[in-house]
């Protein structure tokens, strides 16, 4: 009996964490910003978006209130940001974080270096970071194959106007 009570409490803890407030906070920020931008437009054009913004603020308010009650009254949620928590968090998400940085690299450099070069660098970097090991050929080969498939598909067949490096432009001209 006691165990089931404990597990219920821990379930409730798992149900809501402070991180759960990220979305309500983002949503409220958008709703408030949205409301400020529709002030000067005709009422009929305000109805839909304005109504949604108010509804979103109410729902976000409820979510924030629930969290406050859990933190202060029922003590079924807690804010802990000690070394252990940060370490556990970093251990879990470092790969995702590194992959996001590689995506940023892809988007920033593709217009200067061209699709093929950036795709090759991105793919080999990401595959290495995610655990592909062995000889350089073993790492580069899959990245090269995927890049060539992408080049043939997007540039040659589907005529996507992607920025290209001089070598790709030469191949394209030959084909």
């Amino acid at each position, binding site marked *: 009996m006691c165990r089931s009570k404990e597990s219920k409490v821990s379930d409730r803890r798992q149900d809501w964490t402070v991180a*759960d407030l990220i*979305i309500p906070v983002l*949503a409220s920020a*958008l709703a408030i910003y949205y409301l400020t931008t529709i002030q000067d437009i005709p009422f009929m054009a305000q109805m839909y978006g304005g109504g*949604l913004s108010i509804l979103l603020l109410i729902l976000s308010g409820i979510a924030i209130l629930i969290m406050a009650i859990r933190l202060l009254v029922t003590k079924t949620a807690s804010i802990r940001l000690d070394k252990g928590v940060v370490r556990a968090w970093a251990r879990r998400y470092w790969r995702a974080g590194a992959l996001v940085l590689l995506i940023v690299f892809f988007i920033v450099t593709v217009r200067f270096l061209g699709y093929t070069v950036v795709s090759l660098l991105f793919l080999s970097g990401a595959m290495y970071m995610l655990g592909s090991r062995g000889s350089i050929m073993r790492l580069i080969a899959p990245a090269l194959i995927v890049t060539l498939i*992408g080049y043939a598909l997007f540039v040659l067949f589907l005529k*996507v106007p992607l920025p290209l490096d001089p070598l790709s432009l030469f191949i394209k001209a030959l084909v």
Partner: protein
Amino acid sequence: MDMILSAFHQTLQFWWLVPIGVTVGIFIGAIPGFSSTNVLIILLPLTLGMQSGPALALMASLYAGSHMGGSIPAILFNVPGTGAAAATCFDGYPMTQQGKGQQALAIAFVSSSIGGLVTTAITLFALGYLSKLVYYFGSIESFVVILFGLALIGQIAGKNPLKGFLAGIFGLLIGGIGYDSVYSVPRATFGVLELFDGVPRVPAIIGLFAISEALTMIEKERIIDTSMVKKLLGQGWKGTFEGIAIALKNLVAVIRSGLIGFFVGIIPGAGATIGSFVSYQQAVSFSRHKERFGHGNPEGVVASEAANNGLTSGSLIPLLALGIPGGGTAAVMLIVLQAHGVPIGPRLFEVAPELAYGVVVAMLLAYIALMLIGSPSVRLFSRMSYFPTRVLAPTIISFTLVGAYVARGYFFDMWLALFFGILGLIMRRTGYPPHAVLLGVILGPLSERYFTRAILLGDGDLSILFSRPLGNVLWVLLIGSLVVPSALRWLRSQGSSKNSESGR
């Protein structure tokens, strides 16, 4: 009848174009960000150089193939190739994670083919009558149809209604960013020029599904348990046959979903995404096992796939009968017809009826080809999900970033895809359903457009929404579809509890 037979005779002369169109359509549809419209535009110089009959047959086949192709990455990687396949992810991807990817793909191919075949046959015989339906669909009716799709937010919310509704309304508000469709006033654009046309749906889909999925899948070695991969490699065609059997067992659901898609397709501008969401919502509402949806229920794949292919022939009706293109693909077809000097609208049936019926016949052949080409290839496609995530995740990201860029040619859309990817990851980790946001982003602009137009017609009076006969029928159906299943479930539970009490 003679006209239909003559259309068959004519179309069969260039039957070989149909499998080519279907195959190319499947492959292109499978690339996230590329739709049938993109393919038709790329092939426009080719089709303009052909005679109008073969050109339209090729286009119809590409259209049918691309709708099916979109479901392949949706099922295998949780990455919908087209917006219409987004609802397929809900149950298709969990099936793959359970090692039933081959089964799910077979279900998708068979449901798509049968759903498409049935509705194309209806179009062929009732084209004249069905075209009149288009006249009855105004802003009010279209708004209510979109509400059918939005009702899915309530069902996605499931376990945690607050998080579900919050996510759905957040999505609707994101969909409200950009120019107001009636007054052309920019709203919440953050001063970014690229957002003045609104938040584009392709980067949103790619971010919320593909990028956030790639960021999540790297926590595991493979999508499927490594121990299961060896077993699956040895299963041969078993999964395919099981999938076909499941689809045939759910034949009534396939036909029902196909018809839902078909009627949504008739509404100009509604599009396949709404069709598949409405059909999925109806399947969840009327299922006895509501709780199984979203966890790998084959009925979910059936509902979404049969609907988005049932819709293809429906969307041709406004084009053929009235000259109104119902969507992007139909608009490209209109260009080809015009380039060949073919009269559009009601005169098409007087001047070149064989052409109007020929398109539908080509689509009928395309669905037969789809079944013959698609089902045997399921085994091969399903093997893609066995790759390790260290190869799969970067590949998905590099392909989908290009997909995000393609639609408008803005690098900004790649950033948008990344933003939605991170948003999707946070949502997954904190229990907010990303599907609900996507539903809002896709259906939000449409629901706003129809709502505002209806309100303008009523001069600000909300009662206009209940002033049209067809609209009122749709309201009753909407409320009925939400209330009746719950009432039936309650009655059933009351009955079973009484029985168990009397048994004691």
